[in-house]
């Protein structure tokens, strides 16, 4: 008996070793069968939250490059949207010089690029933003600036590597807009100090505007493509001017945390501007 106890004492660590190794092998075997892994599930419920916060931390370091990729992908998708094109008809002539068939084709009217806001103000009467791209990157005056959530402003001044953007939050900012579903055209202006709210002007009093209606660009300006969200109707009042409504618009763009912006270039801007200038002269 004594011998037996003595033996166990001496061999105890070997037994522990064997038990632990067998346990490991069993766990390994269990983990290889995908269906029934209760151990993994039990442990995951403890480890999961810890791991999640850790992964979040590490993910944050990678957000920069990932965002750049997503922005580029966004641009590719946005370029294909129908409001980027105008329809044209090409008449194909026969050899005899008579019209044969009509080719409808889409001509690209707008193109996109992107930039990052490196400085912006929101609390002044004349606000402005500066983006990190300039004439070297193909930025030009009067390009439209969009935030991921909606219209942001217009490029007003371009240096070699930077450009100034006039946001909606500027007394001189005027954007032609259409409010749906009433389909009334008006102008979005900003007055006052609230960076979240602008006004929609020149909407006739008879139109039925409801709170929550969306305000889009109408594409009249040749700066903004058609159908970009400016904001939503927040308040409708009968103004002093009897024939028009005063409409408060909650801006879609959050100017307080704007970083990535998309810039829209009108490829036929010169042509369209010439036409408009001619019209004015007459």
């Amino acid at each position, binding site marked *: 008996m004594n011998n037996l106890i003595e033996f166990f004492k001496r061999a105890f660590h070997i037994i522990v*070793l064997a038990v*632990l190794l067998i346990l490991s*092998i069993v766990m390994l075997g269990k983990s*290889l069968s995908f269906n029934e892994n209760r151990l*993994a599930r039990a442990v995951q419920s403890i480890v999961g939250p810890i791991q999640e916060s850790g992964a979040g931390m590490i993910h944050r370091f990678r957000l920069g490059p990932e965002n750049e990729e997503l922005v580029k992908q966004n641009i590719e998708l946005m370029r294909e949207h129908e409001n980027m094109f105008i329809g044209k008809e090409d008449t194909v002539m026969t050899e005899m010089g008579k019209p044969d068939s009509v080719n409808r084709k889409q001509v690209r009217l707008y193109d996109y690029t992107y930039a990052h806001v490196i400085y912006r103000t929101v609390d002044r009467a004349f606000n402005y933003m500066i983006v990190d791209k300039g004439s070297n990157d193909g930025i030009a005056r009067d390009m439209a600036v969009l935030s991921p959530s909606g219209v942001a402003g217009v490029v007003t001044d371009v240096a070699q590597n930077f450009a100034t953007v006039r946001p909606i939050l500027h007394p001189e900012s005027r954007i032609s807009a259409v409010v749906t579903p009433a389909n009334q055209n008006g102008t979005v202006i900003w007055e006052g100090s609230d960076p979240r709210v602008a006004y929609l002007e020149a909407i006739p009093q008879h139109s039925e505007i409801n709170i929550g209606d969306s305000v889009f660009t109408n594409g009249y300006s040749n700066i903004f493509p058609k159908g970009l969200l400016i904001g939503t109707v927040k308040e409708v009042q009968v103004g002093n001017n009897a024939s028009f409504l005063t409409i408060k618009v909650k801006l879609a763009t959050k100017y307080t945390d704007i970083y990535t912006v998309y810039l829209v270039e009108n490829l036929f801007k010169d042509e369209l501007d010439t036409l408009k200038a001619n019209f004015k002269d007459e």
Partner: protein
Amino acid sequence: MNNIIANILRFLLLLVAQVAICQHVNLFGYMSPALFLLALFLLPLELPLSLQYLIGFATGFVVDAFAHTFGVSSFSCTVMMFLRPYIVKMLNGANNVKFENIDRPVPGVKDFHWIFLYTLILTFIYEVSAVLLGTMTFKNFGHTLLVIIGNTTFTVFVIFCIEYIFHPREKKE
């Protein structure tokens, strides 16, 4: 007593560093450090053998839990802890039967040569076992070998960096 607290703190610290940082590091696809091994390397050899095995197993289990590789690390750590005394005996020239506090891979206590071989051999044992159990195949063995060597190199490098940062050689033999 002081020693025990130091050991426990070191364990926690290295385990957190392992699951929070090292597990997400993977250089070139075949270099991933197993920093927590340092905690096991520094474990006193005077502890009862069964306790050493248990600690090894538990450490491996925690690492497994975070890596979703149940059994892989636990098995490898236990095997490594089992072989550790023999490696130390071998490095000491087999004349030192009783283990003492000086049999630790700490700069100043042992020379570079001893620490290097100790760390390299034990890491290699762990990685061979862990990588083979992890891949569970001898297919594409060239890559498996690359992973074993890459992991071992990286781990030894990181452990050495930490050893020599935290134990400046103040008491030279």
